[in-house]
């Protein structure tokens, strides 16, 4: 466990040692504001909740999370520091988890910095703050799922551009899997079990229920197992690379 901690600390500090962290947070805040107020019609809806804010998160994460995750492994491989890291007496999974957690906590901070919106709705009306907290938690869990996919994508290539695109595409597939458009294409011919399975794999399906404030154990387990699955996939990729 101490290995996870040491790696996490180093990674986390390195975010803030470069402008990346500040640029990311700034863009995240600006975009989430733009989405909420212009596309989400925050005021026009005349409702004291953050639904317009949260409903855009899958799309926001779609291109912001790969920007965080792409450097996780690609940069280490490119600069050669991976050779240093992997020859230190650290368990491989500890390093993978430590790096992931650093990225996840970092996105958590970006997410938490949207708190003025929460203050705003509380000032304007009387929102259900339980729903909002559940939605924040759900959004953060979803970010974790995206990041874990990104970790695996990043382990595959030493090019950050390739990692970015790869992560974006896979995440898009996981979002789209819940779209009626996609599900209809299957429902005509595939058995209901298949359609349900595809729908249940979707980020969107789970996030929609979460953003309504229903953080059920199922959704929690879904995001959690997504994270575990993709971190294990990262381990496999890194081990394969090591075996050459």
């Amino acid at each position, binding site marked *: 466990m101490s*290995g996870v901690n040491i790696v996490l600390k*180093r990674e986390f500090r390195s975010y803030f040692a470069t402008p990346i962290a500040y640029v990311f947070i700034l863009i995240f805040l600006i975009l989430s504001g733009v989405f909420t107020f212009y596309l989400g019609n925050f005021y026009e809806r005349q409702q004291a909740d953050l639904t317009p804010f949260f409903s855009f998160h899958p799309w926001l994460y779609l291109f912001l999370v790969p920007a965080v995750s792409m450097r996780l492994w690609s940069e280490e491989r490119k600069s*050669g520091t991976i050779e240093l890291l992997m020859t*230190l*007496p650290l368990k491989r999974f500890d390093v993978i988890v430590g790096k992931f957690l650093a990225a996840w906590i970092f996105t958590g901070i970006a997410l938490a910095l949207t708190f003025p919106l929460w203050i705003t709705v509380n000032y304007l009306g009387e929102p259900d703050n339980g729903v909002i907290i559940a939605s924040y938690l759900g959004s953060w869990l979803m970010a974790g799922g995206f990041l874990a996919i990104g970790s695996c994508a990043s382990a595959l290539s030493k090019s950050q551009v390739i990692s970015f695109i790869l992560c974006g595409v896979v995440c898009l597939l996981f979002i789209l899997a819940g779209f009626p458009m996609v599900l209809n294409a299957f429902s005509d011919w595939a058995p209901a079990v298949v359609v349900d399975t595809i729908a249940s794999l979707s980020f969107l399906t789970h996030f929609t229920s979460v953003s309504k404030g229903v953080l059920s154990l199922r959704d929690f387990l879904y995001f959690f197992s997504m994270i575990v699955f993709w971190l294990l996939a990262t381990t496999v990729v890194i081990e394969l690379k*090591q075996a050459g």
Partner: protein
Amino acid sequence: MIEVNHLQKNYGPLVAVDDISFKVVPGEILGFLGPNGAGKSTTMKMITGFIDPTHGSISIWGSDIQDDKLAAQKHIGYLPEGTPAYDEMTPRGFLDFIAEVRGFTKTERLVRIEHVSKIMSLGSVLDQRIETLSKGFKRRVGLAQAIIHDPDVLILDEPTDGLDPNQKHQVREMIRGLSKDKIVIISTHILEEVSAVCTRAIIIAEGKILSDGTPAELEESSRYHQAVTLKSHSSEDASKMIEKIESLDCVKGVEQNEMSILVFPEVKDGTLLPAIIDLVKTQEWQLTELFQEKGRLDEVFRRITRESSHVGS
């Protein structure tokens, strides 16, 4: 002790390291010599556990690098080729991270960092970002992280590559200054380095060990070993001297290059130089130079590595 047994690494059809076996005992400073792409770095990457061998095994102080990687890696300090480091960190932060991974407590880490930055003269740059450091300083940071836990095994991949002569000298001094119960493995393609620091040299080319011995043994295998050079005032003088020299029994051959004469011994038993000195005295030759060679490593290196490529082709 390090034991490498029948080590092999294939990349598809390419055999990067081909059935290498050797042992290194404490106190040895082993130089890996070889042309670029010979398999030196690949071997080091396998010893340190960065890549897995296709076949064979490596044991470090009794721990197998594949079965018990962490135990083996605890013994090792490693400087990978090109000295990778986290550019956005300061040497202090970087060394602190490495020392923490190596299991030192906060106070121990302060002492350790103090100690290695003194050895590597890093004091002035400890709080500067690594990306702003010169190549020499970067290398010293890399070496500092490799020795921070006082490892039993120090593996340095081209530690002096790209450094200026003063920096090279410093790095070699550091390696020589390590205590005598350590194992050091360095890779290099600089031959002078081998005679300067190593107690043993292994020459590899195309993934195979071609020669294994002390630098002195390598020099002895040179055709220049115990050859004597005389330099006279003019090439006419030299030509006259050659006739007399060739008549000596212990002379195998003579090469003239303008004013200098290179005499090869019949037998490398140390009799050539005294014989020539006698001759110079009796003939009362006026010389500007007279010396005996130890051997030329570059010639040995070229001969050994070329022979292998002939066999291979």
